[in-house]
């Protein structure tokens, strides 16, 4: 089974080939085992299936000539050409008016190149196991799972905009959905909750959470979205190259990365802004192998005092907005207004668990309040990444309009 990304890339390539050479009426790709990988928009699946079956049957008979490299069916008006590249069969139907050299170059170069690039990005495409039914004779005992050797992938850094984004965690790297799916395919039951980001240019590494891109426009672009905070910690910036590796649950310690490089660890759900102060890039919990001195205390000490949040509740960074309207001006409210999307997400995560209150934390000095919350009523503020806090509570927190705070549900 190929990944969606590979199919999409191949499909786009086939469509581009037809755009470049309009005399090509059909072009499609299938594997030696018969699996159809992609076809152009003009070619129906039935057509591809018919042709694929015929050509596969022909290929099977071709042992007499040592196996097929190419086949050309030449008609009076058009030709059908099949070429084999590795285990790929590329079939092209084109008019006799087409320049054969152009068609040949397009099919023999573009498609295999695209596929090879995809193989580099998604090695599982190349090494897909053939499905086999295990019989008692050929069944073997599989030993306990160990952390597999993983190869880091190269990505370009893209800024993670926090102000415009809602529910964005600055300590999370946002990556391709296809990559996550591919890891799931490759490593099966090995749980992957964190990734290692490595900046080859600086030698810095970070282990952090990851999530798929929030916007589809970033998909399949070979980029990773990380916050300025992570960029600072890695000492890289937008468009820098970054290597990404999954971290398996059984190798949480990531010893290999501790060996020679600086390692900075973000605990999954706790906002390190609270700990490090205003300049997180400088004050992150950092330790260097060559130095006995630990810049920050151990993780346990670092996050002391935050155990009460440790229910895997999501932390959302939002901007303080005054609580206006009659309630804000006349009353003395002891609640904050949170975007209904955030509330919906909490409900989605915690299901039937009751969430009556939220914890709001000021990010500079770590002051916090626990209070009730309601949904934002002003539609103009919805989806803007803000939290409406009455002035009294703002004073208690030591924050004001425009400042960043963190909000988290209190799960009963």
């Amino acid at each position, binding site marked *: 089974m190929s990944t969606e990304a590979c199919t999409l890339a191949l499909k786009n390539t086939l469509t581009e080939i037809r755009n470049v050479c309009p005399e090509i009426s059909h072009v499609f790709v299938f594997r030696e085992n018969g699996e159809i990988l992609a076809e152009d928009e003009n070619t129906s699946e039935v057509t591809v299936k018919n042709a694929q079956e015929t050509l596969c049957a022909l290929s099977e008979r071709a042992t007499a000539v040592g196996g097929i490299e190419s*086949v050309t069916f030449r008609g009076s*008006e058009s030709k059908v050409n099949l070429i084999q590249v590795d285990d790929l069969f590329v079939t092209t139907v084109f008019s006799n008016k087409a320049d054969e050299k152009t068609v040949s170059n397009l099919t023999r170069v573009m498609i295999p190149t695209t596929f090879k690039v995809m193989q580099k990005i998604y090695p599982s495409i190349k090494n897909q196991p053939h499905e086999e039914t295990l019989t008692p004779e050929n069944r073997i005992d599989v030993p306990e799972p160990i952390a597999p050797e993983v190869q880091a992938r190269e990505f370009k850094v893209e800024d993670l905009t926090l102000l415009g984004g809602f529910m964005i965690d600055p300590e999370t790297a946002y990556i391709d959905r296809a990559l996550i799916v591919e890891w799931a395919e490759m490593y099966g039951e090995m749980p992957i909750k964190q990734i290692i980001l490595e900046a080859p240019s600086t030698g810095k590494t970070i282990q952090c959470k990851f999530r798929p891109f929030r916007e589809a426009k970033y998909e399949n672009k070979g980029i990773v979205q990380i916050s300025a905070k992570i960029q600072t910690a890695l000492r890289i910036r937008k468009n820098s190259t970054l290597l990404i590796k999954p971290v398996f649950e059984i190798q949480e310690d990531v010893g290999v990365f501790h060996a020679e490089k600086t390692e900075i660890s973000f605990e999954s759900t706790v906002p390190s802004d609270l700990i490090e102060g205003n300049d997180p890039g400088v004050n992150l919990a950092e330790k260097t192998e060559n130095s006995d001195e630990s810049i920050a205390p151990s993780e346990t000490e670092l996050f002391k005092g935050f155990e009460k949040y440790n229910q895997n509740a999501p932390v959302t960074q939002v901007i303080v907005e005054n609580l206006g309207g009659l309630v804000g001006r006349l009353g003395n409210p002891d609640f904050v207004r949170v975007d209904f999307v955030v509330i919906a997400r909490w409900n989605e995560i915690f299901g039937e668990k009751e969430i009556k209150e939220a914890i709001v934390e000021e990010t500079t000095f770590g002051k916090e309040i626990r209070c009730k919350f309601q949904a934002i009523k002003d539609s103009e503020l919805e989806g803007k990444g803000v939290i409406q806090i009455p002035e009294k509570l703002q004073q208690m927190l030591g924050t004001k309009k425009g400042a960043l705070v963190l909000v988290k549900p209190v799960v009963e």
Partner: protein
Amino acid sequence: MVKKRDINETITVEEGAVIEIQEVQGVLNPTVENEDPDYANLLSAIQEIRKRAEVVGYILKGESKATVDLNDSAKIIEFAMLSSQTFEAAKTIASTFRISDTENILIEGKNLNMLCLNLGPNNISIFMEKGTDHRGILRALAPQLE
């Protein structure tokens, strides 16, 4: 009727009859009786082509008979099946993609190439060394193709 050739095997297929394989030592002048003139002309042309060093064999299949001449006689069945499958595939491909009748088919294999032509009731498959320019063979067969 049996057509004979020096050292090579000759297979004659009579319609509805069993394939006969006869190995002949020595040269005999073939006698052609009641033979389809197109078939005979084609056979003659292919025999000329067969003399080329790069051509390793051929299969000529008519309505009621077939002639096979291959360097590697052990692979007669494999070559015959490939030839047959190729003409079948040509029909399917032509109808699937609505291309007009297939004039010729070239299979470039990893070891050998095969050129197939459909001339009315007669099918020709010519096997040649890899890298052989099949257009030379097509030119040699041009009078038969008209």
